[in-house]
């Protein structure tokens, strides 16, 4: 589990606004559904997502049980320096997933 699909440019011009799109494979079990045995299924959702660009926070997102499975997020950032983009998802039961992408700015 926890496979991701990240669309981020590998290069950009300085000062250009880049679009970043992330899709995470996650069931986002809301905690309100009942299973086949009639018991409530335990909540298992991603609660936070953040993206840092060379250590600086670009976006921080809080997610709630109403968000559908496999959450997709799209946001933008200003390309200022070459470096790394750090994507982090955190959730219930100690879930954590981290991905990195490098970008070269000219």
């Amino acid at each position, binding site marked *: 589990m926890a*496979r*991701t*699909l990240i*669309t981020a440019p590998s290069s950009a011009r300085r000062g250009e606004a880049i679009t970043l*799109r992330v*899709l995470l*494979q996650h*069931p*986002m079990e809301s905690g309100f559904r009942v299973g086949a045995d009639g018991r409530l299924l335990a909540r298992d959702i991603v609660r936070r997502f953040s993206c840092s660009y060379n250590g600086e926070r670009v976006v921080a997102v809080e997610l709630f049980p109403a968000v*559908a*499975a*496999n959450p*997709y997020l799209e946001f933008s950032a200003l390309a200022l320096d070459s470096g790394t983009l750090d994507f982090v998802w955190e959730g219930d039961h100690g879930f954590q997933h981290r991905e990195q992408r490098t970008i070269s700015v000219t």
Partner: protein
Amino acid sequence: MRACAAALMALAALAAAAQPLPDGRRSGFEFMGESTQAMQRDDALNPGMLWVLEGEAAWSQPVGAEGHSCAGCHGAARQSMRGVAARYPAFDAALQRPVDLRQRIANCRRKLQPQALAPGDEPQALALEAYVAFQSRGLPITPPADPRLEPARERGRRLFHQRLGQLDLACSDCHETHAGRRLGGSPIPQAHPTGYPIYRLEWQSLGSLQRRLRSCLSGVRAEPFAWGAPEWIELELFLAWRARGMLLESPAVRP
């Protein structure tokens, strides 16, 4: 560059799929809302691509005692699996019966791993199926002209037109007689299996054609056949023949 050309071809194929065929057959894609269509068109947005990626990883991963992988025999799926999904279900000479893509993959895996894939929508089987089907995206469905398939396909045709369940409805009652109209606010598509396995928003997950057929059967309050029962394959054979020439969209998104 080649990947780029392939992507362009796939886009052209998807655009082509959005046009109804001259005989009036239309993919389920055309019955969807604009936002769901956009979700399918864009691979960065289509959650089905997550399973394709998983299948790609499983393709070359060694399994079993001898450490064989799919790639070990079949090489690069991009070449060897191109067009394969468009031909299934097909006749299996060793088993002397028709099998669908799922069963074909499972039979192959069984040779590698004695603990075969479980029946039903088992995640790894689904991922491999999605990866193999993805290689045929944009290609027309071409059911094999194999006379050995004929009796099963004919049984599938009868099943499609047979009234079932407490609601006493046949597949054809909704998907032929009333196709294009609405059922509980949702459009009734023509039931062409052009995009399986599909990412269905209702399921919040990828699922097989068999899973989709099961939910139709329980929808008319009939008891679904067991997983992998011959009836499903017969129905799939008829549906593939009915959709012959239509373009594959796997992994499709459906509401």
